[in-house]
């Protein structure tokens, strides 16, 4: 078996084992209601981290608008679910369709932003994705959308000025109040399946012709071009897939909280996901999963630590970068891990 395949199978195994353990702990009451309530959020953060890693770690471009794609996915899917609540009565079917919609709309936004920006040098993507996140948040905060027998109505002023039909009218997005109630269709089991699908797509993509091409853009753009790799195509591919899964994570979020507004879709959330990715190791999918789990749970377990959570994240970001680029530190780490994990290291090199 190929080393990369083996590595991926271990990652699936870790996720499945974690799921089984969480299910067991939740069912026996060991977890308690508070921690049980965190299972779905942890899941969508894992999806967010894994998908962001595709852009930041594997493609090597910085995106600061991951929360924006999440927002798009959340809002469009929530509107769908609110409209079809009485038509599609099977929550699972409704959520699957919602995820498809949320993911695809986020992917379309990914393409729309990616086309102008990915032609440019790296730093622009960071700033434009940041701007995108703010625009999306701003717009969803200001817009009113309603539906009645005549179709959709929009307003930027208030709910009244949509002039909805009294009998059949229904407000979908109520300005800054957002969408409520969104059917609570997300369950931990569905989240788990979606994580597996995300891993399947991201890891198989990375370990294929397209994945090598994406990484070649990261490693040496000029060399990639001169051996015939289309830079724009592969940048766009990675960025769009990443946006798609961020959208899906948004769907899971929206269908877990019932009252959807834009508060969470801010810069801080994008940074938090970035911290998960950086701490887990750029390009390491397994690392993203474990880092998300640890960093999400740590502040929950140490309540008093919560005030310092953000500060802690900031320091992690800086130290991770400084140490990673410090020759002395790198050789120290490699000699220590080399001695401890002599066999493991060899395996990793083969991936």
């Amino acid at each position: 078996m190929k080393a990369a395949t083996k590595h991926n199978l271990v990652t699936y195994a870790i996720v499945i084992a974690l799921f089984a353990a969480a299910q067991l702990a939740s069912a026996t009451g060991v977890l308690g209601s508070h921690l049980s309530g965190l299972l779905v959020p942890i899941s969508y953060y894992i999806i967010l981290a894994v998908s962001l890693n595709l852009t930041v770690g594997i493609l090597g471009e910085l995106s600061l608008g991951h929360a924006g794609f999440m927002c798009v996915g959340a809002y469009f899917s929530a509107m769908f679910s609110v409209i079809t609540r009485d038509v599609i009565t099977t929550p699972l079917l409704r959520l699957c369709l919602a995820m498809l919609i949320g993911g695809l709309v986020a992917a379309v936004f990914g393409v729309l932003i990616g086309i102008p920006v990915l032609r440019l040098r790296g730093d622009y993507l960071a700033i434009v994705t940041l701007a995108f996140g703010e625009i999306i948040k701003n717009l969803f905060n200001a817009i009113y959308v309603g539906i009645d027998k005549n179709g959709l109505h929009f307003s930027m002023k208030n709910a009244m000025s949509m002039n909805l039909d009294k009998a059949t009218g229904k407000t979908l997005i109520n300005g800054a109040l957002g969408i409520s109630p969104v059917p609570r269709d997300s369950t931990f089991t569905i989240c788990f399946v979606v994580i597996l699908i995300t891993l399947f797509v991201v890891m198989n993509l990375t370990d294929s012709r397209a994945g090598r091409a994406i990484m070649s853009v990261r490693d040496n753009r000029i060399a990639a071009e001169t051996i015939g790799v289309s830079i724009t195509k592969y940048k766009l591919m990675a960025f769009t897939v990443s946006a798609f899964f961020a959208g899906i994570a948004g769907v899971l979020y929206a269908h877990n909280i019932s009252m959807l507004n834009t508060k969470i879709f801010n810069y801080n959330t994008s940074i938090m996901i970035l911290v998960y990715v950086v701490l887990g190791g750029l390009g390491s999918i397994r690392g993203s999963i474990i880092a998300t789990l640890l960093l999400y749970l740590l502040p929950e377990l140490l309540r008093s630590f919560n005030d310092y959570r953000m500060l802690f994240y900031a320091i992690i970001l800086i130290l991770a970068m400084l140490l990673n680029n410090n020759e002395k530190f790198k050789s120290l780490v490699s000699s220590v891990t080399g001695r401890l994990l002599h066999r493991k290291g060899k395996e990793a090199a083969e991936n």
Partner: protein
Amino acid sequence: MSFISYLVNGVSLGGIYALIALGYTMVYGIAKMLNFAHGDVIMVGGFTVFMTMSLGGVSPAVAVLAAIIVCTLLGVTIEKVAYKPLRNATPLAVLITAIGVSYLLQNLALLIFGSNSRTFKSVVPVKAWKVNDTLTISGEAITTIVVSLVIMLALTLFINKTKIGSAMLAVSEDRGAAQLMGINVNRTISITFAIGSALAAVASVLLCSSYPQINAYTGAMPGIKAFTAAVFGGIGSIPGAMVGGILMGIIENLSRAYISSQIADAIVFSVLIIILLIKPTGIMGKKYNEKV
């Protein structure tokens, strides 16, 4: 008449953006990095004025001077500690570090000052100017416009007429060649950070006087918008940052007045995306040729 008043306020806000954008653009030109923490230096400047005046009871002039000193030191320290070790690292690593620094400053401020906004007492002594019955221009707006114009002029002279200025131009043109010509690149980069941060301090005083509130996030949004302005004008170009900043201020204020205050920010950022679509190098930017 109200249009003129919106316009004047737009120019005033634009002047502040221009001062901040200058810091971004100079650092970008010389160190080839996007200093994400630049916006948060503004916040530190604002808090310095706030603290020295309300606790220290010093005069506004002393407070402003203190802000300039604190910001300059902060900027140079950030460069030394966080960015200098990464001179040869990938742009991604530098960018992530810069975001880390920005985040660190914000959250330190949050821990020290809490999340509530403090009221900032304007330090501007200039009285409002009543042009006629319908048009009054605030003292802050007048001061901001005058101060930012004077600084821009001084900076242009400094860059073009002094030895340090030409060293900065040389480093931004070709760092390797500049080094071979005997220019101390590290010192030049430090000076650039110092100037950029001092400008941020001035901007912070003007910003907090015009919009008399301060909290840990005060610098974040103006910082991002000023960066947008720098890209708008052409990143790396000093006149570009000035023009871009002022245009950005006008666009923001007019859309706030005539379209919707809620989506004014969205409009400003949409301008960025449109500019990048049409002219990726900005209105005054130069084409960048990668050395192979």
